[in-house]
């Protein structure tokens, strides 16, 4: 993302994704979920070609309000994502990446494949950092 503002397309796609996830939390049986997901997709598809941005923004706003009214109180959240059970669980055990440079050569000899390519990888990363805009 270059700027902090989302484009209309991005907003619509995010609404679609979160509404599908909440629908999945409501319809726990897979075939029932599939049926209602197809209906939801048809609703998104019929208004897909709207060229008038004012009308499209109004539709997006009403869609967001409908989502807010129909959301699930305890939606399924993946364990590793924010709000999930395993979010940041192993964060205290993660070691920063530069520690690998401080290993003893006898320890480095235990993983020869990785360390032989590590210098190349670091160079690539420096190049990427200097050329990317972020």
């Amino acid at each position: 993302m270059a700027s902090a503002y989302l484009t209309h397309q991005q907003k619509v796609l995010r609404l679609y994704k979160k509404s599908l996830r909440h629908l999945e939390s409501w319809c726990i049986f897979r075939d029932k979920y599939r049926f209602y997901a197809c209906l939801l997709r048809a609703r998104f598809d019929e208004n897909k070609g709207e060229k008038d941005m004012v009308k499209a923004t109004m539709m997006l706003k009403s869609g967001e309000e409908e989502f807010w009214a129909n959301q699930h109180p305890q939606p399924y959240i993946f364990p590793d994502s924010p709000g999930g059970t395993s979010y940041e669980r192993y964060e205290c055990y993660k070691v920063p990446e530069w520690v690998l440079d401080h290993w003893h050569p006898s320890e480095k000899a235990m993983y020869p494949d990785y360390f032989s390519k590590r210098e190349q990888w670091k160079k690539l990363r420096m190049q990427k950092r200097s050329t990317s805009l972020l």
Partner: protein
Amino acid sequence: MAARVLQQCVRSFARPSLRLCSGNLAVRAAAAPTAALHRPLSFAADSRRTRWLGQSRTPSVGVLCRQYGDLPPLTLETIKDRVLYVLKLYDKINPEKLQTTSHFMKDLGLDSLDQVEIIMAMEDEFGFEIPDAEAEKLMTPEEIVQYIADKKDVYE
């Protein structure tokens, strides 16, 4: 008497541990010798069960370290196979035309809503969420495989 039984224990456990160490040097060396060393100590206490000594099976390569309640390790190959399998199940994609480098929008003629559905299927397959900011940039199966390998630290 107890010393002789202990010697038999150590010798018969040294034999399979030699086999393990010589065959698989590439695997994490720390786990195997310590596991082999600790076994005679624990079996010295139960020296009555001498029949068990010769029957330790040589486990396969990936199982030399202890496995707690975790999934089998991911490799780039398995990630690619799973991604392509899920894509072939999607009915808007023609399975013959699917390659790892085929772009969803340009080659396969899919929509942005279809791409969202594909990313959701990948999230369901691999069990972790792909945030929206990064999901909208994944446009080929190759990129999806690389992203998953990045997140899961597979042959980085």
